[in-house]
C-alpha cells in the first residue's frame, strides 16, 4: 500500500512541484518588493494557510470522492450556505435557546443533518431517476440556493456567539480548529478511499460502471452514500467556518463548487472518474490558496490576480501533461 501512495505522489508530482515553485516565487518577489515586514514562508503564515484553505478544502475532499465515483456535485456551495443558516438559526430556536452555550453542539448537529439531508436528496434523485448527476446538482445548485433565500429573505442570518467563536479560534501547535478539521477529514477520507470496500468500489464504479454492475456491485447505494458524504462535508465546512464568523449571507458559497472542482482536478483526479486521490486534492487545495495568498502578498491588482490565476491553472495542466507523458513510445492520438 505504501509503495502505491509513493507512486501516486510521484504521479501527482506536478502539483507538489508547483507548490514549491509558488513558495519560492512569493518569498523572493515579496522580499524584493519588501511590501511587508514579515516573510511569506513564515511558519505562522503557513499554519494560517491551512486554516484559510479549510472551507474549500473540506468540500474538495468530498468532491474527490464524488468525482472518483464518476459523478459531480455542483450544489455544494448552496448546501454550505444552507447548513450555515440552519446552524446559526437553530441556536435561537426555543428548544435550544434555554441550553445556553450547550446549544452549540446541537446547532452543529442540525447543520450536519441538513447537509446529509440535501446530499440524500441529490443522491436519491441520481440513483432513482437515472438523471445525470451534473444536471441533478446543477438544478439543486439553484434549488438549494432558493431554499437559502426562503429561509430569511435577502437578509443575512446572524447569530454571534462568542463561545462558539472561541472554539473556532482555539488551536494547538498554532493550528486552529478549522485547519484541524480539514486535516482530520482528509486523513479519514483518505483511509476510506484506500482501505475500505466502499472506497475501492467507488473507484470501480467510476472506472467502469458497467463492469461494476456486472460484478454485482450495487451502484445506487454507493452513489447515495457518497452524496450524503459530500453533503455532510459541505455542512462540516460550514460548521467550521461559520462558528468563527457568526453570519451567513445568502450568497455565500457561490463558486465554491468551481473552486473545489479545480482543486480536485489539479490534484490529479480524473473528471471521468475512476482515478484520483485525496492526497492530490490536498495538494490542489493548498496550491490554490497559496496562489491567492501570495498574489495578495506581492500586491497584485484585481485584474492581474484574475489573469494570473487563470494562466497558472493552464500552466499546471501543461506541466502535468509533460510529466505524465509516456515518452516516444506513446501512440499519437
Amino acid at each position, binding site marked *: 500500500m505504501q509503495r502505491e501512495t509513493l507512486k501516486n505522489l510521484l504521479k501527482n508530482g506536478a502539483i507538489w512541484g508547483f507548490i514549491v515553485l509558488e513558495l519560492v516565487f512569493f518569498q523572493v518577489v515579496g522580499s524584493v518588493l519588501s511590501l511587508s515586514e514579515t516573510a511569506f514562508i513564515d511558519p505562522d503564515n503557513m499554519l494560517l494557510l491551512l486554516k484559510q484553505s479549510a472551507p474549500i478544502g473540506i468540500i474538495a475532499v468530498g468532491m474527490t470522492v464524488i468525482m472518483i465515483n464518476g459523478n459531480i456535485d*455542483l450544489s455544494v456551495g448552496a448546501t454550505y450556505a444552507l447548513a450555515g443558516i440552519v446552524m446559526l438559526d437553530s441556536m435561537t430556536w426555543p428548544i435550544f435557546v434555554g441550553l445556553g452555550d450547550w446549544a452549540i453542539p446541537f446547532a452543529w448537529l442540525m447543520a450536519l443533518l441538513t447537509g446529509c439531508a440535501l446530499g440524500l436528496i441529490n443522491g436519491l*434523485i441520481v*440513483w*432513482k*431517476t*437515472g*438523471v*445525470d448527476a*451534473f*444536471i*441533478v446538482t*446543477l*438544478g*439543486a*445548485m*439553484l*434549488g*438549494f*440556493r*432558493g*431554499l*437559502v*433565500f*426562503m429561509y430569511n429573505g435577502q437578509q443575512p442570518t446572524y447569530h454571534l456567539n462568542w463561545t462558539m467563536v472561541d472554539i473556532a479560534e482555539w488551536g494547538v501547535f498554532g493550528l486552529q480548529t478549522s485547519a484541524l478539521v480539514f486535516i482530520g477529514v482528509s486523513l479519514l477520507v483518505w483511509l476510506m478511499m484506500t482501505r475500505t470496500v466502499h472506497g475501492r468500489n467507488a473507484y470501480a464504479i467510476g472506472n467502469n460502471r458497467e463492469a461494476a*454492475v456486472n460484478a454485482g*456491485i*450495487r*451502484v*445506487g447505494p454507493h*452513489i447515495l452514500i457518497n452524496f450524503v458524504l459530500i453533503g455532510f462535508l459541505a455542512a462540516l465546512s460550514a460548521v467550521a467556518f461559520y462558528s468563527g464568523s457568526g453570519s451567513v449571507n445568502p450568497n455565500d458559497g457561490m463558486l465554491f463548487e*468551481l473552486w473545489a*472542482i*479545480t482543486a480536485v*482536478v*489539479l490534484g490529479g483526479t480524473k*473528471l471521468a472518474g475512476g482515478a484520483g486521490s485525496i492526497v492530490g486534492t490536498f495538494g490542489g487545495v493548498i496550491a490554490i490558496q497559496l496562489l491567492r495568498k501570495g498574489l495578495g502578498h506581492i500586491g497584485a491588482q*484585481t*485584474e*492581474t*490576480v*484574475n*489573469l*494570473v*490565476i*487563470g*494562466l*497558472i*491553472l*493552464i500552466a499546471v*495542466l*501543461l506541466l502535468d*501533461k509533460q510529466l505524465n507523458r509516456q515518452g516516444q513510445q506513446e501512440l499519437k*492520438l
Partner: protein
Amino acid sequence: MAETNLKALGGLLARQGILVAFVVFMIAFALWNPRFIEIDNVFSVIRSSAILGVMALGVTFVVIGGNLDLSVGSLLSFSAIVVLDLHETPGFGPALAIPAMYAMTMGIGAVIGFLVGYLKLNSLIVTLGMLSAIHGLTLTWSGGQNMDIANQQETWFGIFGRGTALGIPIPVLMFGLLAAVLAIILAKTPFGRKVYAVGGNGTAATFSGIPRARVVFFTYIISSFCVATAGLIQASRTMGAQNTVGQGMELEVLAAVILGGASLLGGSGTVFKTVIGVLILGFIQNGLLLAGLEFYVQFVVTWIIIILAVWLDIATKRGKLWSPIA
C-alpha cells in the same frame, strides 16, 4: 390503423421527450396566466433568451465534440466591453468596431481551441482558467469601468439589440438564423459528422483519419463566434455594459444545452434540442415572473422543472420511469 398511428405517435414522443415536456409546461403556464402566450410576451421571452441562446448554439458544438466551455460568460463580457470601447474610440464607429471585436473574441477562442484541441489539455480546467484570465483581460481593457455609448441617437449600433425587421426583433432573427445555419452545419456537413465522431469516440475518429485536433479547434472557433455575436446583441441592447455582464452565464448556457439532451460525454445532441432547452429556461423564468413569485421561489421551481424535464426525457427513451441502476 389507429394502432399504428398511436405507435408512431408513441415513437415520436419517445424520441422527443424534452419537446413534450416543453409543450406540457407551456400549456400549464398558459392556463395559469393567459398572458404568458400572448405574442408580445413570447417575443419578449425569445428576445431576452437570444443572448443565452446564441451562446448555447456554440457550446452545443463544443459539448458534442466531447468538451466543455466554461469561459463563454467571461468571454461575453470581454466582447461587449471591447465592442463598446472601440465604438467610442474616435475613428472607429460601429463598422470597424464590430469586425475588430469579432477578430479578438475569436482569437481568444482560437487560443482555447489550440490548448484543448492540439495540446489536448482538459477542457474543463482550461476554460475555467480562461474564465478567470479573460475576466482579468476585460478589467485591464476597461480599467474596471463600465462602458457606455454616449450618443445613442447618432449610431446605428442599436439595431442588433433593439431593432426589428418585419415586426420581429432583430435578436430573435439573429438567433433563428444562426440556429438554422448551425443546425445545417451540424446535421448535414462532413464537419458536423466529424464533430459527432470525435465526441463519440476520439480514438476511433483518429483511427479513421479524422483530424481530431482540428475538429475540436473549430468547435471552439464556432463557440467564440457565437459568443461574439451574443456580445454584440448584448452591447447593442443595453448600449453599455459592465465588466461582469456575462458572469455566471456559463452554467446557465450549459444547463440549456444539457436540458436539450446533449450528453456531457460528447457525441450526442442537436442544435434543435438546444434551442428547445434555451426556450424552456427562458419561459420558466418568464412564467414564474408573470406568476408573481419571489425570485427564490423561482429558483426552487426551476430546479424541480429541470429535473422533471430531463427525467421525463430519459424515461421515455428507456421506456421506464425508474432508473435501472441497481
